[in-house]
């Protein structure tokens, strides 16, 4: 940092402390502050999502559809290629997709008409295909985590976004999904975490809602797994 920038930093911190009426390093109750800084303790989770696995799945579907996402169920991964093909055909879309490496393990050979390219999205890709780190039932939200196998551009550039979400990955509240992320990535948070609730939208012209402002016009969620996901607690949670 240059001398000028260092001076600005020192001046702002000094001014903050002077206004708060204390000297440098004189933080009250350091234990309390360290505890707050560590995070991991939810404040208040609304009762809405404190339900069993089956109801949680139903809540996720209801909330996602309310914000104009579409959903479909597949009992097993074998049905997924067909479901992707049906979505494309239903909207008269070409059968070319750009796919996140994280979902390459599905049995795509079962749908030879699909043309799949692996990697990040370019501005001409019409349909992107990704997994999701989690679903959040409270508001029908998808949690997408950036990584070598899950590029962020796939969530935003293509006109259509198809997401494969195992039913066992549906949590009640945001905090529960983030707790799972903390467990998997304890050293630092991933570069980018996107919480996505429905397709892109804007009401900037005369307060009239339009879908597909800059991000996807369509968000299609394929729920993979049994109708009632196993267990009462979301994955990763004890008990």
């Amino acid at each position: 940092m240059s001398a000028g920038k260092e001076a600005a930093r020192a001046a702002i911190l000094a001014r903050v402390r002077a206004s708060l009426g204390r000297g440098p390093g004189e933080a009250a109750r350091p234990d309390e502050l360290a505890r707050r800084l560590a995070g991991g303790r939810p404040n208040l989770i609304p009762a809405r999502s404190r339900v069993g696995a089956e109801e949680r799945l139903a809540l996720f579907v209801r909330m996602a559809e309310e914000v104009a996402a579409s959903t479909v169920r597949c009992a097993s991964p074998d049905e997924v290629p067909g479901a992707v093909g049906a979505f494309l055909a239903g909207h008269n879309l070409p059968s070319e997709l750009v796919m996140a490496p994280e979902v390459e393990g599905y049995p795509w050979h079962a749908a030879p008409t699909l043309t799949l390219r692996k990697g990040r999205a370019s501005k001409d890709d019409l349909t992107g295909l990704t997994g999701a780190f989690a679903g959040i039932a409270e508001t029908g939200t998808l949690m997408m985590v950036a990584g070598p196998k899950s590029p962020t551009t796939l969530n935003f550039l293509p006109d259509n976004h198809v997401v494969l979400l195992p039913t066992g990955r549906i949590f009640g509240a945001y905090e529960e999904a983030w707790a799972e992320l903390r467990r998997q990535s304890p050293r630092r948070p991933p570069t980018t975490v996107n919480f996505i609730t429905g397709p892109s939208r804007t009401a900037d012209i005369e307060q009239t809602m339009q879908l597909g402002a800059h991000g996807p016009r369509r968000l299609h969620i394929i729920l993979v797994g049994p109708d009632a996901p196993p267990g009462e607690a979301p994955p990763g949670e004890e008990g």
Partner: protein
Amino acid sequence: MERTSHAFKESAVRALQDATLQMALGNMRVGFVGKRQKARERLPEFERLCDLARDIKDHTLKHLDFYLEAFEARVKAQDGEVHWCRTPAEARQVILEICQRVEARTVTKGKSMIAEEIALNEFLEANGIEPVETDLGEYIIQLAHEPPSHIIAPAIHKTREQVSDLFFEHHRQYGKTRRLDETRALVDEARQVLRPKYVAADVGITGANFLVAETGSVVIVTNEGNSDLTRTLPKVHIVTASIEKLVPNVEDVWTILRLLARSATGQELSTYTTFASGPRQEGELDGPGEFHVVLLDNGRSDVLGTEFQDILRCIRCAACINHCPVYRAVGGHAYGWVYSGPMGAVLTPMLIGIEEAGHLPNASTFCGRCEAVCPMRIPLPRMMRHWREREFEGGHSPPTFRRGIKLWAWLARHPRLYGPVMALAIGLMARLAGRRRRFRVLPLAGGWTGSRDFPAPEGQRFMAMWRARRAARGGP
């Protein structure tokens, strides 16, 4: 950005007479208020969350130095940079230096009130860098060369017709020569025009809704997805944020996020909520190569510990603006700077001075709706009163007003004189009012009677009525 807050009265009169503006503002009456109410009713925990959110921000502000340093340490550990800036000039310079170092020619921008506060666009243009606003509302007003008139709906003052004219005029250069009428078609055309710009931009600049000390994350909330494309596609991501955006941890962010969209647009959650925590890491397929947080003070540190500290809890949801009868009558431009409505009436004098913005805290009916709907429980009317006091103490109010207030204050402190003088005045006015019980003209009250009648007093003072009532009940 030009400041015209001192001319609020004149601007308000013009706004009231502007038929197109009044038509555009009419769209607001049906939307925001009802949707917020519904969203609030759907979440039984709403009011408890408001209490928690207030406490989170109060705690953070009380230990702001600690959380600022913790945030900086995390960002640095995650290969990002934090730039501390005391003034708008320092912030602009930092941003320019980054842009020049990477030889940036175009910059895409997500909506940021801090970028407005530091008048970034004009500065970049003056230095040969083209800024491209990507939020649809911001894009519209950039074409129109106007400032935003609402913190979450910057082009709310524009009608579809006006947007259609702007696109027709400016999109010709991209070969789009048809004049469009439908909102759908207008949104699609903006999407097509902006798409190549995202890809071509060298630097992306976004705002921040929260800065998270625990994780060194910047939280960015949009409905369009424009800020995510702005962050992800260029080589460099610059975040502009003010120091009070800090919150301690991720759970605290979610508590406040449950209130933000509901209070703003009535959505359960905005479409995109992004936690951005540094540049692209080894092995990742996309994302920015550099990550910079420009941290602006601009007078906020002076407000800590004063009677105005509570305004630093503001999360820019615009609920106060959407429920303000004054805003809904005159729109945002009359306020003459970046922030408008009740939050603007409190914040603007803080940032550009009460001498310049003295009219704003006076532009209130004190109906109290702003405070009632504020999810962060900010006592906005009380703070407007504090500004009025400061304006008076600083001698910024007009001389006749000051003399009148002084005379009143003196009289009110001398009850033996106050009683008889008031009784005389009230009795006289009651007799003079005649049958209509109203005054069309009243000396020294032209400001009131210029646009409405002054009701005549009922003929007796409250204290006299009170005594009579007590006597009738046989009290002491």
